[in-house]
Every structure is written in structure tokens, then in C-alpha cells.
């Protein structure tokens, strides 16, 4: 009982440590076995790099699919054709994911200085899966630092002038916007447009009614002319009978004086008939064409109505569109301002000289300030239907 705790439970403590160590070792073995199985149970394939400049490709380089580690490079060789072949073991889980048209890209770290190289496989869309030992086309990604340098060089040489042009466009757009604002701020533009559309509609309706009335009148005129034609034909028959001396009237008109008068009358009637016939012929043409005209007029009016409706629909959106454009221009200006302040591009955009001086001002022979009260009276709304006394 007088023994200390560690001596009294010496066997138990040693036993617990042993069991713990055993569990840790077992877990480690299991983990290693699991990892090994993932890779070791994978399938082999080849990545063929046909382009020169394949660097940093060595055993142990990771292979990724969609940024997830999916395999490892087990070796590389250069074939007789001069192409570099990377021998790769991919995890079995990728067996059915990688198609025959998949491609691989070897990414190297910045300037070969920092980070590890890796191969990224982009899965293709072909329905056939990559066979064991199959080949994937490989490519080498450009060096990131070199790419960045190239981009900056291009930016410096090309973007500067482009931004200058963009700035001019932006200013021009700004001026256009200002003008658009001026138009949009015009007093009662919307009301005036609405009134104009309403007037156009009313005018269209009036024109349609007028055309319909014209058509009716033409039809009535045609009927009247038909009747006149019939009446004149009857008169002609009567005159011919009189000329032959038929009937009571013919006999009564056997007198030579009467005969001369009748002959003159017949001549006049014949002339009148000719005139009426010519008129009828022309009217007939007009009547034939009138329905076409009316139809075309109606179509035109319908188009006008559609256009008016479209304009009415678009009109409310114009101010918001202008607002969006202004916002866009504002953002563009902010970006340009930031670029202008930047050491790399600022030199291209900095003002080279003072702008042109503003024009001078002079004294205008303006009339004095208007009498506001008089104006208010002149502009007071009037009762509907009131007539201007002037």
C-alpha cells in the first residue's frame, strides 16, 4: 500500500502504452495500405508531349484531374520520333472518367523557381473511355512569369493608345449623354409626345373614315351614272323613233322647223352622252382602284398605330437607359482614372499640354428681367374651350 501509484499500476500502464502503440501502428499501416492501393491499384497510360520544351517532367510529378490528385508520373522517355512520353499511373476511380479525347497540360511553376510542377488532365467529351496503356495528347503551359511579362509588355505598348481612344470615346459618349439629358429634361416632352401620338391616332381614324366615305360616294356616283346612262339610252330610242316619224309625236313633229330643232337637240344630247360616257369610264377606273387605295391606307394607318404604340412603350425606358449608360460611363471614367494614375500606363494618358482657352465673354444687349407677375398671369391655365381674345 505504501508503493507509489506508478509502481502499483506499472503493468497496467505499460499495457495501455503497448495497446496505444499497437493501434497507432495499425492505423498507420492501414493508411499507407489505403494510399498504396489507390495508386498501386491504378491503371497505366501515357501522355505524349509532341512539342519541344518539356521541362521539369520527372518521376513523382503529380497528375490532377479537375485539381484533384488522380495519379502520379512513374517515368518518362523520349521516343524515336523525338516526342516525350510520360508514363502515368492513374487512380482506378478515374478509369471511366477519362475519355480518349482527353488532354493533359504540364504546368511548371513561375520561372521554374517556386512550387512544384504538375500535370492537369482535362476530361474530353468522347463516349469511348481511355484504354489501359492508352495515350493522351499532352501540352506544356507557358511559364507564368513569362506570360505575365508578355501581357504587361503588350499592355504597355497596345493598351495605352487603346485607352486613349477609349477615353476619347468616353468623353464623346459623355457629351452625347449630356445632349440626351438635355433632350430628356425638356419640359413636358413626354406629355407632348403623348399628345402627339393621340393626335396621330385621331388623325388616322379621321383619315380612315374619310376614305370610307369617299368609297361610298364613289359607289353612289357609279349608281347615279348607271341610271343616267339608262335614261339617256331611253331618250336615244325615243329620238330615233321620232326621226322615223313613228307615233303621234312623230307625226306632230313632221314640221320642218320642229325637225331642225329636234336634230339640234339630238346633236346636243349625243355630245352630252359622250361626255357622260368619258366621265363614267374615268370614274369606273377610280372606283376600281379605290378599294386598293383604301386597303393600303388602312395598312399604313395600322403600321402607324403599331409604331406609335412601340414608341409609347419604349419612351418610359429611355431615361433609365440613359441612367445606366451614365453609370457605365462613370465606372469607365473611374477605371481610366485608376489606369491614368498607374506608373505603367499613366504616361500614355497624362495631359501633354494645356487645353485651348475658353472664348471671351462680351456684353449682350439683353432685355431686362421679365416681369414675373405678368408672365404668371399670361401663363395661367384657362378654362377648357376658352378662346384667346387676341
Amino acid at each position, binding site marked *: 500500500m505504501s508503493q507509489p501509484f506508478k509502481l502499483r499500476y506499472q503493468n497496467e500502464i505499460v499495457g495501455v502504452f503497448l495497446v496505444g502503440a499497437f493501434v497507432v501502428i495499425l492505423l498507420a499501416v492501414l493508411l499507407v495500405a489505403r494510399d498504396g492501393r489507390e495508386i498501386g491499384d491504378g491503371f497505366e497510360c501515357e501522355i505524349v508531349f509532341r512539342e519541344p520544351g518539356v521541362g521539369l517532367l520527372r518521376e513523382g510529378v503529380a497528375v490532377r484531374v479537375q485539381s484533384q490528385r488522380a495519379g502520379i508520373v512513374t517515368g518518362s522517355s523520349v521516343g524515336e520520333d523525338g516526342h516525350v512520353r510520360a508514363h502515368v499511373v492513374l487512380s482506378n476511380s478515374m478509369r471511366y472518367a477519362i475519355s480518349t479525347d482527353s488532354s493533359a497540360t504540364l504546368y511548371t511553376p*513561375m520561372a521554374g523557381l517556386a512550387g512544384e510542377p504538375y500535370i492537369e488532365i482535362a476530361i474530353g467529351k468522347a463516349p469511348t473511355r481511355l484504354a489501359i496503356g492508352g495515350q493522351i495528347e499532352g501540352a506544356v503551359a507557358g511559364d507564368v512569369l513569362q506570360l505575365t511579362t508578355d501581357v504587361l509588355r503588350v499592355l504597355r505598348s497596345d493598351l495605352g493608345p487603346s485607352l486613349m481612344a477609349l477615353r476619347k470615346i468616353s468623353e464623346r459618349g459623355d457629351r452625347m449623354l449630356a445632349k440626351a439629358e438635355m433632350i430628356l429634361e425638356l419640359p413636358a416632352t413626354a406629355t407632348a409626345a403623348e399628345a402627339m401620338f393621340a393626335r396621330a391616332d385621331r388623325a388616322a381614324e379621321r383619315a380612315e373614315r374619310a376614305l370610307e366615305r369617299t368609297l361610298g360616294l364613289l359607289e353612289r356616283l357609279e349608281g347615279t351614272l348607271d341610271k343616267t346612262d339608262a335614261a339617256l339610252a331611253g331618250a336615244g330610242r325615243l329620238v330615233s323613233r321620232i326621226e322615223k316619224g313613228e307615233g303621234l309625236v312623230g307625226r306632230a313633229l313632221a314640221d320642218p322647223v320642229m325637225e331642225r330643232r329636234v336634230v339640234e337637240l339630238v346633236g346636243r344630247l349625243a355630245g352630252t352622252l359622250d361626255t357622260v360616257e368619258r366621265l363614267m369610264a374615268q370614274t369606273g377606273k377610280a372606283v376600281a382602284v379605290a378599294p386598293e387605295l383604301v386597303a393600303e391606307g388602312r395598312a399604313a394607318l395600322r403600321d402607324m398605330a403599331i409604331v406609335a404604340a412601340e414608341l409609347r412603350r419604349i419612351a418610359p425606358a429611355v431615361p433609365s437607359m440613359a441612367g445606366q449608360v451614365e453609370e457605365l460611363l462613370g465606372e469607365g471614367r473611374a477605371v481610366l482614372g485608376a489606369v491614368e494614375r498607374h506608373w505603367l500606363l499613366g504616361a500614355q494618358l497624362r*495631359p501633354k499640354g*494645356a*487645353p485651348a*482657352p475658353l472664348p471671351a465673354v462680351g*456684353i449682350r*444687349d439683353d432685355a431686362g428681367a421679365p416681369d*414675373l407677375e405678368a408672365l404668371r398671369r*399670361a401663363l395661367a391655365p384657362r378654362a377648357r374651350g376658352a378662346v384667346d381674345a*387676341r
Partner: protein
Amino acid sequence: MRASAVGFGLIVALGASACGGSAPLGRREVALREAGLGEAAMKRGHPVQAARRYDAALAEARALDDRALVARLLVDQAVALVRAGRCDLADVRAGEVMRSQDGPLRARAALVRASCARSADPAREALAVARAAAGKDGCLLATADCSEGALLAASEPGRAAERYRAAAGRACEQPDVVALCSYNEGRLAMRSAAPARAATAFARSADAAARAGDAAAVAAALHGEALARDADPAASADLARRAGHAAWSAGRYPLAAEAFALCARQFGRSGRDEEAGTCRDNGSRALDRIAPSPPADGAATAAPAAAP
């Protein structure tokens, strides 16, 4: 390992210099940039914004102690302030330039002072200074001539006409000068009861003012032409309506109200009551911009009229 560390260090240094190492613009560049933005604002018809830009440019130019640039910016700001209707501030700037400068800048500053003068005598004095400082600058001399003509128009129309003829002889084609001189000529013709001549002059003025991008001058010229064409109500009404819209866009609400009132009257004469009513509504809105009309009885809580 060592190579990697060196590479990493290089990349960090490059990133820092590219992303964060923006060198600020120099004072002169800032001044020129602000002056350019001021000029752009003037071209857009925003003299108040332009005056603010010139203020920023002036601050930089003063810090540089570049007197020539300061004087130039002061004159431009004074012009912007005159357009914005702040003659009190413009006069101070013009005075500063006149104390320190000679030549065209002094002449332009003197013209600003003349246009801001409250009475004829100081205006004539300023015009004399402008004439003396303008040298052989035909446009500055023409501006001075036309300004003097405006001062003489009411009392001595004959001499005013002489001044305008002298200005025409300067052969200045600058649109703002042509707009000013033609407008003043139109006013003189109206005073002489020669509406046809006045209408021609006002039309020329409106055209030149439009080329100069001065909406207020366009409005004044169109209004003058509308008055000159009083005998033709339809044409007069149309011109007055255009004048009203131009004045509204330039923020000259008294002129807009006047023009819309004329438009309403002329459309009423032509029997076009609907358009007359529209002009009347627009004129009322312009009047409300000057001084809101008192609310009608029981309408104290009524919503304000929608801005046109």
C-alpha cells in the same frame, strides 16, 4: 531551396511594384488634367462644374507658383462663372488677372469685368482696357466693339450701329463672337422697328451660338427671332417653343418662361389651342423653377408639379 526563396522574393517585389506602387501625378499634370475637365464641362454646358474643376486646377497651379498658368486658369474660371451667373465671383478673378497680366489675358479679363459691370461707366472703362490690351487680336477687338455697341444701343443707336459695322470689319469668324455681335445687331434692329432685318440677324446668331455650343445664347437668339417674326404667328410660335426648350436646358428659367408665354400666345393666335396649352404648362413649370407659385387655398399639402 535557396533558388525558390529568391524567386519567391522577386515575385513578391514585382507584384508589390505593379499593384501598389502607383506614383502620384505631378502638380502640373493634375492642374492640366483638371483644366481639361473644366473645358469639357463647359462644352457640355455645365459652367458650375467647370468652375469647380478650374478651382481644383488653380489650387495646383498656385502651389506650383506658375503665374502664367494661374492667370490663364483664372480667366477661364471667370468665363465659366459668368456663364453660371456668378458675376460677383468672376469679377474678383478678373481683377486678379488684370493686376498681374498684360496682353490678351488682360483683355479677356477686362471683357469679363465689362460684362459683369453693373452700370455703363465702369463697363466702358473695362472695355477701353480690353481694347488697349487686345493688341491686334481681331476677335477680342470685335467682342469689345460689339459690347460697346450694346452699351450704346439704347441711347445712341447710330453709334451702336457704327460699332457693329466696325466689329464686322474685323473679320472674326469665331462662332461665339459672331453669335454675340449678331444678337446685338438683331436687338438694335428691333429697336429701330426693322423686324425683317432683326429676324435675319437673330437667325445668324442662333446658328453661330449653336456652333459655339452655348445653349443660353441659342435660346436668347431664338426668342429674339420669335419676337421679330410676330407677324407670322405659326413661325413665331415654333421659334418661341424652341427658344423655351433651349433656355430650359441651359437653366435660364426666366427666359424659358418668357419664351413659352410667347409660344402660348402665338399658338393661341393660330388657333392651335392644344399646343398653346402645352406651352402654357411648360412656361408655368419654368416659372415654378424661378419661384414656386403660392399654393392655392386648401392645396397646401398638394404634391409639387412633376418636373418636365
